[in-house]
């Protein structure tokens, strides 16, 4: 996870890249402004919640990606059920490289997440119960 976030932070213009849980708790952070991790995680989680709520109101699926462009910079967010990936980018930095990199990072994280999921449900029980039994 750290490697994925570091690769993202290495792109031109990216000030900070953060992987956080859906509630905003930082998991991995890289870049020049790592001190922003907690604040960024909390703000991104609040934003994700608001965007999901607003989308539900319009009968739309929750957004999977959000680009917020402002006069002094841009934020790119990958929003998934369990985690958030955020990159803060300087104004004027080229965004062409960021989009594919962000998508690639999100798929790597999704694949890693799937590998860590509990085994499928056994007949007559949930996956979590099965995992507990096995554990």
């Amino acid at each position, binding site marked *: 996870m750290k490697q994925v976030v570091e690769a993202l932070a290495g792109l*031109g*213009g990216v000030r900070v890249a953060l992987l956080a849980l859906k509630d905003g708790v930082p998991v991995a952070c890289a870049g020049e402004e790592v001190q*922003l991790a907690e*604040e*960024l995680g909390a*703000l*991104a989680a*609040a*934003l994700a919640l*608001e*965007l999901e*709520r*607003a*989308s539900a*109101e*319009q*009968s*739309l*699926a*929750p*957004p*999977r*990606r*959000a*680009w*917020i*462009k*402002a*006069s*002094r*910079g*841009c*934020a790119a967010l990958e929003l998934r059920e369990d985690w958030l990936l955020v990159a*803060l980018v*300087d*104004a*004027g*930095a*080229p965004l*062409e490289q960021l989009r594919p990199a962000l998508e690639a990072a999100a798929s790597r994280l999704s694949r890693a997440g799937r590998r860590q999921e509990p085994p499928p449900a056994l007949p007559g029980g949930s996956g979590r119960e099965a995992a507990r039994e096995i554990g």
Partner: protein
Amino acid sequence: MKHILRRVLAAGRLRELERALASSPTAQAYGELAQEHARRGDAVAALEVAREGAAAHRADVHLNRLVERSTALVREERLRELARQLQAAPRDALRAEHCALLFEAGRVERALEAAIEWERHGGGAEARLRQAQARLRRYAEGRRREDAQLALAALDSAASALPLDPRPWRARAELAAKVGAWAEARAAVGRLLELAPGDAALEARHRTLGALAVGSKGLDAALREVELGGRFSDEVEEPAAEVSGSNALPQLLARAGARPMVRAACVLRGATALVHGEKGASAERAARGLRDSLAASRAFARKLGLGALREVQLDHDDCTSAYECGEVASAALRIEGAPSVEHKELLRELARAACARQERP
């Protein structure tokens, strides 16, 4: 082995494209060769080819865009290299180039931080000049009096350290003229004339400013006025003619909604929302959703110090919501799939129309 084979094939492809360009130097051939260089990671070669192509085919939009992108890539490469060099062995020339490149790339905040850092390490007047330059750009964007005052302080300090340098006075004259403090601008041009006596352009400017300076406001009052009104002296109010008719905006909205792939179009100004593509309760929900998404995005950008919100794009599973935010109004399109250049242009047009004054002639 696979890697070597790929490199050999790529080199072959490059030669093939160069031969194609030599036999027929079309815009497409230039574009393909530049893109191949970029794919191989050679941004400098890509820029050279794109520049040559753009010079030969001036009207070609694709080649001009390639020049811009290759320039940005080359700049980013140099910035990365500079960051490494500055860590290893920092020196003034590298810091100056670093600031200049960041400024050129439009990364004003980073340029300002770099200039402050440079001053902290003994950059002196040059570092203060770069700070002033970045703060002036920030002032032009945000129009906050504080930015202008900090820039002026940096310019004063640079001017006293570099008494024969015209740059601080030129910047001061430009700022004063921009905000309509004509007497201040005239005084700054006067100092420039002392440094370059007999300069015809400066003399003409001095005369013009002299006529305007009579009874003009002071610099501080002018800065306060710009902060309150949001307009520089050379900016006139946007003409209302384009959309002044009461039906112009709804017509534009209907036209936007009728475009292929567009599911809904919406404009938001104050407490009023105009929605096309949804009716009744769905329209109300769409307007509420747009307002909430924008409010959340605006708060997010503000709290992170990203400045004024310009654009938002939300990618859902089956559609995309794209928002364009103006100073007083916003526009949104819900599009099937990813938004095209045409969609973005349409959205900008909608936001411009919504921001324009809606007074009857």
